[in-house]
C-alpha cells in the first residue's frame, strides 16, 4: 500500500507519491502552475478520480477533473454556479470553490462542493456538472445567517466541512465560516442549525446563528456519532444524539489557547484527535503561538492534551496551517501531514511523535489530503 498526498497551493497543485514505508516521496507537479487551488481530493470509491477546485487571480472559478490520478485533466462542463437572479435582483456569483467532499460509498459519482460566497452544490456525474442546493443557497433564512461577503473572512466567507454520514447517505453536515454548523436528515432537502453549546465572540448573542464561526468539523469514522470541531472560539466535541457541543479546548494550555484552523481525527480511535493551534490574540496574527509551532493531541476525547513538537522548529517559525491543510492517512501507525502558509510540507509517520519536513519552497499551501493507493 502506498500513500498519495494531494497538495493545493496559491500557485498550483502538486502530488506527492510515497513509497510503502512513507520514507521517500516522488514529487509530481506543478499541475496548472499559477492557478489557486483550495482543495484537491481523490475519490475513495474508485481510487483514481481526482477533483481539483481552481481559479486564478483573474479568471473565474472552475473544477478540473482527472480520471487517471493526475496524468491528464479535463475541465468540468458546468462548474458550481449560483442560480441566475430574477430581473432587478442582485444575484450572487461564485468566487471560488473552497471545499470538495466525495459522496456516500453507495452513491458513486456523487460529490459535494462548498463555495465562497457561501453556497452548497452537488454533482451526480463525478464532478463534471454541478447543481445548487436551493435549500441553502436561495433560502431567505440561510441567506440571512450567511450575512454578506463583508461579514466573512478576508478573502470571502467559506462553506466547508461537508460531511456524509458513512451509515446513511441522507445524513449530511456542513459548516460556514460565517453562519454555524448545520445538519440534514433528508439528503439536503432541508437543513437545521447545530450550534448549541458553541461560544461566539464576546458581546455577541450565541443564539444568533450568524455569529458562529466554525473553522473545521470532522466526523470520527470509527464512531460516526462523534464529531470534533475547531472553531474560532475554541475546540469542541459533540456526541450524538446530543445537540450540545462540549468545549474540550478549555483543557489546552492557557498560553497556547484553543484557537486554530485544522483538526484531524484518528481513523480507528474516536478518542484521539489532533489540532494545530495558532495565535488568536490581539489582532489575530494567525501564526504559531510565540513562533513555536506544535501539534496537540488528545487520546481521551479532549480531557487532556499532549504537545507534539519533536522535529518541528523550536522558535522563530511564524507560519500556521489552514483548515484543510492538515490530514491523516489510514495506516497503522497513522501518518499525519500538514502544509504551512510558508510553503513547507511536514509529516509524521508515528502519529505525531516525531515530525520531518518533506518539501520546502512551495507556494502558500491551502490544502493537503492523503489517500491510500492499492
Amino acid at each position: 500500500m502506498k500513500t498519495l498526498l494531494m497538495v493545493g497551493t496559491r500557485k498550483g497543485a502538486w502530488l506527492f507519491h510515497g513509497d510503502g514505508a512513507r520514507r521517500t516521496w516522488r514529487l509530481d507537479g506543478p499541475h496548472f502552475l499559477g492557478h489557486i487551488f483550495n482543495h484537491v481530493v481523490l475519490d475513495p470509491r474508485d481510487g483514481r478520480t481526482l477533483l481539483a477546485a481552481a481559479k486564478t487571480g483573474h479568471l473565474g472559478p472552475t473544477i478540473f477533473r482527472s480520471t487517471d490520478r493526475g496524468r491528464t485533466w479535463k475541465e468540468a462542463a458546468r462548474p458550481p454556479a449560483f442560480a441566475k437572479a430574477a430581473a432587478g435582483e442582485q444575484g450572487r456569483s461564485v468566487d471560488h470553490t473552497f471545499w470538495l467532499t466525495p459522496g456516500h460509498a453507495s452513491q458513486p459519482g456523487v460529490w459535494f462542493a462548498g463555495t465562497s460566497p457561501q453556497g452548497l452544490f452537488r454533482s451526480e456525474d463525478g464532478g463534471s456538472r454541478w447543481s445548487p442546493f436551493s435549500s441553502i443557497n436561495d433560502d431567505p433564512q440561510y441567506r440571512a445567517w450567511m450575512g454578506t461577503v463583508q461579514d466573512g473572512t478576508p478573502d470571502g466567507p467559506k462553506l466547508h466541512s461537508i460531511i456524509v454520514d458513512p451509515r446513511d447517505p441522507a445524513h449530511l453536515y456542513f459548516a460556514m465560516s460565517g453562519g454555524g454548523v448545520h445538519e440534514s436528515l433528508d439528503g439536503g432537502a432541508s437543513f437545521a442549525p447545530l450550534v448549541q453549546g458553541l461560544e461566539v465572540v464576546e458581546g455577541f448573542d450565541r443564539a444568533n446563528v450568524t455569529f458562529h464561526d466554525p473553522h473545521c468539523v470532522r466526523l470520527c469514522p470509527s464512531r460516526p456519532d462523534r464529531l470534533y470541531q475547531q472553531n474560532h472560539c475554541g475546540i469542541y466535541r459533540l456526541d450524538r444524539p446530543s445537540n450540545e457541543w462540549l468545549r474540550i479546548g478549555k483543557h489546552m494550555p492557557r498560553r497556547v489557547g484553543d484557537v486554530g484552523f485544522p483538526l484531524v481525527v484518528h481513523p480507528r480511535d474516536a478518542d484521539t484527535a489532533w489540532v494545530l493551534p495558532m495565535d488568536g490574540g490581539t489582532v489575530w496574527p494567525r501564526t504559531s503561538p510565540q513562533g513555536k509551532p506544535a501539534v496537540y493531541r488528545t487520546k481521551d476525547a479532549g480531557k487532556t492534551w499532549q504537545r507534539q513538537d519533536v522535529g518541528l522548529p523550536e522558535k522563530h517559525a511564524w507560519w500556521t496551517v489552514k483548515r484543510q491543510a492538515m490530514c491523516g492517512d489510514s495506516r497503522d501507525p497513522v501518518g499525519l501531514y500538514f502544509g504551512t502558509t510558508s510553503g513547507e510540507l511536514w509529516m509524521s509517520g508515528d502519529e505525531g511523535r516525531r515530525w520531518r519536513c518533506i518539501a520546502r519552497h512551495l507556494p502558500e499551501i491551502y490544502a493537503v489530503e492523503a489517500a491510500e493507493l492499492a
Partner: protein
Amino acid sequence: MKVLIPSPLHSYTGRSQVEAGGPTLAALLADLERQYPGIRFRMVDEQDRIRRHMRVFVNGDQVFELARPLRPSDEVIIVQALTGG
C-alpha cells in the same frame, strides 16, 4: 470578427487570435463558448457580469455591457486587468 485572447485563456483557444461572430457581445461570447467550451465562465459570471479583473475593448473602447451591439468589422480585444501578485 477578429478577437484577441489574453494568455490566461490560451489553454482554451490554443492561440492569441481567433475568429468569432455575433450581433452583440453576448452573442460573440456565446460563439466563443461554442468553439471553446468553458471559456465564457472564466470571463463572465453566472449573473452575466464581466468578471472583476477581465476587460473587453471594442475598437479601442472599453465595453461593460453584454448587450453592446457589434458589427462584423469590429475588433474585439479581451484582456486581464493588471492586478495580482
